[in-house]
């Protein structure tokens, strides 16, 4: 059942149309991730839902109620900011209890809720500390705690991990996923990192230039991207998209196809002179569990190949590439998917 419904949502800053008519529905308990390159409007869309920006057109309904013109304070949403945005003059406990104190909740209830959030987030020993006395990761947990204590209708996360270092980012990502499973709360999460999108989301919304490119589960987006943009945005290393002429004519069966997309794992290295494509090795990245081989073809196409076996290849070696013809994505001149072989 639809919990949050966006209908024709538009946002214009002066002359610039930042959000161009978004229709989206989010079900109760679902974890939705807005993902896209910087400047795609994903944060603006989140702020429109939060009520921190006003809509230029369209409407937003939450739980059957129109909240389009409602101020943030009355929307019953909680937000975790990229900069944490903790109140610097309040202790951790005060930060987490601020909303409940504003709502004049019973002090005993407040204490119970704060203690429970602190327990979930391992913040127990820090409740009396000020934010400046804590590390970035701890501050981020306080910001999440502040949202948990609220028990809001929806949790909004605005790039919550981008200020953390790589190790902490991975760890916190797992914690957020666990938290979502435990609390079952409806969540909207904004990130530019497609790995976060893939690992956290029930539903991924890929945005570009203020418009939705595709909505779907992570694996749907991976296996059946609607266009070249989504195909290349989801997955690391990104999908190889080459001109159809790179493949031998026999394998090209699709009418109107201009480009063909091949995931790096759907390519196999073979001896020179074999396979559908001849290529020269440019670079080999040995990551341990997997090896990435960067190649270029005589026609100039750049191709990356992923294999689980280690490689003895060096730059300059000539190889053949065997293409898994069952896993091709065909795009027209404009980048729209016209056919996919599975």
């Amino acid at each position, binding site marked *: 059942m639809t919990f949050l419904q966006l209908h024709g949502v538009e946002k214009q800053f002066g002359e610039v149309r930042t959000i161009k008519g978004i229709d989206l529905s989010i079900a109760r308990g679902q974890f939705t991730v807005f993902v896209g390159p910087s400047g795609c409007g994903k944060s603006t869309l989140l702020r429109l839902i939060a009520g*921190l920006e006003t809509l230029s057109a369209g409407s937003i309904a939450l739980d059957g109620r129109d909240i389009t013109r409602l101020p943030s304070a009355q929307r019953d949403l*909680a*937000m975790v*900011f990229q900069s944490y*945005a903790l*109140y610097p*003059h309040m202790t951790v406990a005060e930060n987490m209890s601020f909303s409940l104190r*504003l709502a004049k909740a019973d002090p005993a209830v407040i204490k119970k809720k704060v203690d429970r959030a602190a327990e979930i987030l391992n913040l127990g020993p820090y409740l009396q500390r000020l934010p400046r006395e804590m590390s970035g990761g701890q501050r981020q947990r306080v910001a999440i705690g502040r949202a948990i204590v*609220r028990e809001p209708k929806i949790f909004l996360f605005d790039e919550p991990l981008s200020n953390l270092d790589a190790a902490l980012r991975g760890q916190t990502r797992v914690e957020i996923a666990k938290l979502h499973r435990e609390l079952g709360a409806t969540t909207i999460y904004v990130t530019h990192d497609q790995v976060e999108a893939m690992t956290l989301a029930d539903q991924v919304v890929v945005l570009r230039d203020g418009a939705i490119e595709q909505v779907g589960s992570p694996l749907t987006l991976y296996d059946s991207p609607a266009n070249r943009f989504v195909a290349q945005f989801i997955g690391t290393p990104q999908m190889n998209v080459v001109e159809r002429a790179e493949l031998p004519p026999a394998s090209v069966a699709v009418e109107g196809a201009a480009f063909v997309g091949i995931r790096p794992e759907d390519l196999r290295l073979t001896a020179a002179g074999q396979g559908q494509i001849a290529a020269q090795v440019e670079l080999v990245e040995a990551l341990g569990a997997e090896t990435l081989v960067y190649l270029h073809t005589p026609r100039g196409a750049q191709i990356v190949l992923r294999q689980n076996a280690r490689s003895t290849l060096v730059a300059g070696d000539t190889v053949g590439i065997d293409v898994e013809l069952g896993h091709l994505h065909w795009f027209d001149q404009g980048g729209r998917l016209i056919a996919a072989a599975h």
Partner: protein
Amino acid sequence: MDFTSPGGQRIALAIRTAAAWLVALLLFFPILFMVVTSFKTELQAIAVPSIWIFTPTLDNYAHVQERSDYLLYAENSFITSVVSTIVGLLIAAPAAYSMAFFPGKRTKGILMWMLSTKMMPAVGALVPVYVLAQSAHLLDTRFVLIVVFMLSNLPLMVWMLYSHFKDIPPEILEAARMDGATLAAEFRHVILPLAMGGIASTGLLCLVLAWNEAFWSLNLTAANAGTLAALIASYSSPEGLFWSKLSAASVLAVAPIVVFGWFSQKQLVQGLTFGAVK
């Protein structure tokens, strides 16, 4: 000379220290001279070269209190400066808030325009203000001084509060809004505690400016609502200049604000740097 060797560094430090003392003495000397003169007799006061060793007398202070009601003037100064500062802050804070957190296309222009009013000499507005005050029967009232002090300090207050509010990350206010804070709650629980230093220093500075204001109090008030500035001026009268009595009156006029400034100098300096150094 080599100022980088240890010996040279000591010399450089000595020169800097001496220069600092020299400037400080230069600035402080008129005040010192005034205080010293206030304890002299009139004859000692006009002696050239000035006398530095004499038997101090309190006669001048007695005279000042006898001739004019010091306490009335002090009360006028106190009420006009305090009330104008408080009212000014109440008006400036919302203005600074909206400009700091909801800037529009013309915010910068409005700020510059407000500041530009401080560039006009006060005397340029004397006639209209005087006529207005006269036709409203407000001449020689504290009310008119409060209004004029408040209006003339308002641009400065808005500017200072604006720059202090600007230091608060807007996300913190957004977080408060998400937490259910109304505008009033946001102001009380977030902005006020975070900008307290800035608000205090703004208030202190405007208090001092209003206390020291002479032009408007001389022109708009007389015996009833005159401030200490008017009291001092009354000693340069047709009877001629009475240096020691004038000094005694001046000491009495500046003493409260100097003591006050001494205890709040840290806040004042913070305010004068306009929140730039943090």
